[in-house]
């Protein structure tokens, strides 16, 4: 069998799957743009002319940005601690990987049990007599961001950790033994070297936060929607597929508008780092 035919056969199964995905993507964008063979932007006009939709878009971006920020704030120190841990590191990894692999439904539901009116926190607070009526800890932005940070934090930690594990410990020690203060060696050695992992983490968390449905629905309720939950309702309750397609296209564009520049930046950083290493 000629080599090219063999390669074609080997690529056929995975290639077919990717073509199916591409076919859906093209049809999605097409169905939001074209009605009866004519270019029709009315769905987009309808979206951007409604104040509540624009507010929802803003809310989605704000929640995604805050989730990404908190994931980075908590994820970097955790990844650093685990990467430099001298004891049983496998146990710490297990504490990150295991929750990551548990279904997001179960994890979000856990937060409902903790934050709900008859949940852990309200139960404790009413028992101590600190409050008389249960406090509203979910069905608001606080609940949604807490849930999203919890669900997405492992992605950030894993992305940063996989880069930090490759940076030899003695690189920082060398910088410090040459007189650099810890903050200086962090800024000049550790931060630039860990940047590719940080950028991957930001990309993943931002993407998943903008497109999340399960966590915002369970912890945010039906009132204040995000782009993902709005799409879900258009499909499941109103059966308005063209509108859902237009919203999904808007979601794709907002996600890729952030993700693609970061990916390009990441490639550039990686190239700069490898050039620096070879000189």
């Amino acid at each position, binding site marked *: 069998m000629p*080599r090219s035919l063999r390669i074609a056969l*080997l*690529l*056929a*199964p*995975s290639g077919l*799957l*990717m073509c*199916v*995905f591409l*076919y*859906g993507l093209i*049809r*999605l964008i097409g169905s939001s743009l074209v009605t009866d063979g004519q270019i029709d932007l009315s769905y987009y006009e309808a979206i951007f002319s409604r104040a509540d939709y624009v507010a929802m878009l803003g809310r989605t971006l704000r929640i995604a940005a805050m989730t990404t920020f908190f994931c980075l704030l*908590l*994820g970097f*120190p*955790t990844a650093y*601690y*685990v990467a430099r841990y001298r004891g049983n*590191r*496998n146990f*710490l*990894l*297990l*504490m990150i*990987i*295991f*929750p990551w*692999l*548990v*279904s*997001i*439904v*179960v994890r*979000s*539901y*856990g*937060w409902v049990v*903790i934050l709900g009116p008859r*949940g*852990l926190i309200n139960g404790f607070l009413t028992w101590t007599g600190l409050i008389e009526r249960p406090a509203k800890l979910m069905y608001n932005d606080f609940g949604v961001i807490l849930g999203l940070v919890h669900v997405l934090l492992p992605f950030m930690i894993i992305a940063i*950790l*996989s880069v930090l*594990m*490759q940076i030899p410990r003695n690189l920082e020690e060398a910088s410090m033994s040459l007189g650099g203060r810890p903050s200086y060696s962090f800024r000049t050695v550790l931060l630039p070297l860990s940047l590719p992992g940080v950028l991957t983490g930001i990309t993943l968390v931002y993407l*998943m936060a903008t*497109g*999340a*449905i399960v966590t915002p629905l369970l912890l945010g309720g039906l009132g204040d929607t995000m*782009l993902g939950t709005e799409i*879900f309702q258009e*499909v499941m309750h109103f059966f308005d*597929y063209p509108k*859902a*397609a237009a919203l*999904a296209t808007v*979601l794709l564009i907002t*996600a890729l508008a952030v993700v693609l520049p970061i*990916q390009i930046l990441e490639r550039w950083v990686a190239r700069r780092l490898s050039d620096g290493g070879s000189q």
Partner: protein
Amino acid sequence: MTTRAIAIAVLLFLPLPIVIVVLSSFTSAGYLSFPIKGVSLRWYAEFLGSADWLKVLGTSALLALIGALVSTAASFAAAWAVVRHEMRFGTTYETILLTPLIFPHAAIGVIMIVTLSGLGWLGTFTGLILVHCILTIPYAYRPVVAALRKADPALEEAAASLGARPWRTFWLVSLPAVRPGLVTSLLFSFIISFDEVTVTMFLVGPFVMTLPVQVFSEVLESASPIIAAVSAALVLFTSLMVFVLDKVIGIQFFVERD
């Protein structure tokens, strides 16, 4: 010092809601509350006595099994072309296989509705298999390609030069060399598929339902503790898979770069 405090807090924070769900499943009350009122296994009995829940569990397991087998096989074939045949544009092809990862899940859900309704497979088991294969390929590809890169092609050449036919070489030399990678791909894609909700919930129908989607719709509608019992079963299942993964390839696999 602050680093350590944050890290320890995070490491306790991550398993917290999972532990709470598992604990709350042992309640004897008819509604969900925490701390629980009295200990009982009644909700487990209810779960295991319900034909509906067991059917959904069966569907999820079968779906994840078939999906994992197909996407591991497809990934292995692609990895073989990229690594062993050193095909042109191999890196580009690898990037294409990873693209489902850079799409938001809500958007993938709508893309898949469009795809499956085009094929006439919306709300069918076949449709779910197709979608789960696409979703798990990025996860299945990495372990298998890493294993293939580590395996020494000289062994295959040796077997061939000693007169083994290509298929025999493949079965007796190539396959055993990448077995840990294949098992990891299978387990990893099995877990991803078994736990998937966000995309799947757009595609289920009256004739096909998966366990996490069923749990999700029950949580939206009721506060019955049976959801906690089913969730606890999901957690137990995931822990078993993680245990096996740790034994097969080691948990540090997840934070290694190739």
